[in-house]
């Protein structure tokens, strides 16, 4: 299987503080790859580096023949990477429709994309005129995902989409990720909790101190819980 996204030897700094040291990562075509690791291991930084929001000091991020580290941040989404940031980061003062519009504008997508995204999240259709900051947490997460899917991305980056949501909502987010995999979207999913991951991920990469430690198939993880204990430190 070919790779959707390949990261090699990525170094990133916050100011003078190194966060990623020569990180390697492979995202296969059409898979859901989960990044696991402790707080501050560099999971969110990895996603931000892919988006060009944190400059890479060294290394490469290849998307389908395009070197992303050479692009200015606003060109990365146009190349086909969509980002659902931690904490959702909606344009909260704008309506649901306006948030979706911004997503559509990114790659010049039109009505057809809008319809297919709204089909995925029918709840949003009734809320189009509502100010997005007044939605419930789960609805906001759906909108954040909808906004990202308006790019019709090859690669989707999800940063803790289930954080702070009630179980029924978590289940729906998980269903959506599974549906997207069927559509052929390659996804990098950052999560804190292993149980949120096991049912949707194909492979899991463990990150520690800004380095990739190990990548395993999710079946192996189910059998061997010691791995999780070692890198995440919780059952």
């Amino acid at each position, binding site marked *: 299987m070919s790779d959707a996204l390949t990261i090699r030897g990525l170094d990133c700094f916050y100011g003078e503080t190194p966060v990623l040291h020569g990180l390697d990562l492979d995202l296969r075509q059409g898979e859901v790859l989960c990044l696991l690791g402790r707080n501050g291991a560099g999971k969110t930084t990895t996603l931000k580096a892919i*988006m*060009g*929001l944190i400059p890479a000091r060294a290394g490469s991020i290849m998307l389908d023949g395009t070197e992303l580290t050479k692009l*200015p*941040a*606003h*060109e*990365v*989404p*146009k190349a086909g990477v969509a*980002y659902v*940031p931690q904490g959702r*980061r909606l*344009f*909260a*003062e*704008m309506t649901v429709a*306006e948030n979706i*519009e*911004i*997503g559509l*504008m*990114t*790659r010049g997508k039109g009505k057809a994309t809008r319809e297919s995204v709204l089909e995925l999240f029918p709840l949003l259709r009734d809320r189009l005129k509502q100010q997005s900051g007044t939605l419930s947490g789960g609805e906001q997460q759906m909108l954040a995902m909808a*906004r990202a899917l308006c*790019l019709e991305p090859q690669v989707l980056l999800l940063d803790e989409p289930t954080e702070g949501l009630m179980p029924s909502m978590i289940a729906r987010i998980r269903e959506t990720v599974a549906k997207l995999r069927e559509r052929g979207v390659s996804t990098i999913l950052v999560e804190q909790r292993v149980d949120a991951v096991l049912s949707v991920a194909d492979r899991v990469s463990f990150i520690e101190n800004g380095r990739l430690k190990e990548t395993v198939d999710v079946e192996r993880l189910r059998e061997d819980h010691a791995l999780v204990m070692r890198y995440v430190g919780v059952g």
Partner: protein
Amino acid sequence: MAFGPHLLLATLEGLVTSAVLALMALGLSLVFGVMRVVNVAHGEFFMLGAVLAWAVTATLGGNPAIGFLAALVISPLIVGAVALLAEQLVLKRLNYNPEATIVATIGLLYIIQQLALTFYGPDARPVAAPFNYRISLPWFGYSGYKLSIIGASAILLIATWFVLTRTRIGLVMRATQYDSETAQAFGIPVERVYAGVFALGAMLAAVAAVLIVPISQAHYLMGLDPLLLSFIVVIIGGLGSLRGTVVAALLIGVSDGVISVFFSPTLAKIIATLVVAMVLVFRPQGLFGTARR
């Protein structure tokens, strides 16, 4: 003159002040709202607009209406280009750092002011109004041109509101204002938006200046008072709120007109400054602003 007509006259004068002030303060507010840059040189863009209006009309000569209309187009375009240059040469290189840009725009203020003194000179020079029609009211005659300033300002404010709330350009500007990092993750070229907004803010000041210059003459120090009043308007109205800017400009302009006529201009300034102090104490985000996130 009886009290009623006197009050009407004072209110009309105040409305003219408000109209110009609203345009200028809107430029200041947009630049701060979107870029987080406090543009101390904003008054100099206003002055430059007026001086260029004089230069354009003096060069063209002939019919004052044609000269004025030419100035209304050419002067804001040149001022916008100057602002764009300043943005690329200075603000961008400072990474739009809020503190550094204050110092930088203070420097810009003196550079523009001294350049105007060098090339334009210390004189106040008039620009002819495009028309001299007087509207006769039962009690006094009033300049039709002054009324047209109010109309032109209203049209420009409505146009700005329309662009901000109903167009894609406005959507991009609001997204950048709200969260520039996420805006980039959705393909918005934030630096280009900044450049455009800075030029637009300066152009609004220049338009305000061209409108007022047939009444007040062009002078190289004319930017200071409007700058101060714009800050007052923006603080009272709430930064980044178009509605607040308009309401505060009306409040300051009309009360300035009325108090100046019936009492003294000094008292008007004292009261305006007092209102700013009170707003800062009791409602720091301004009348229509939302609290900072």
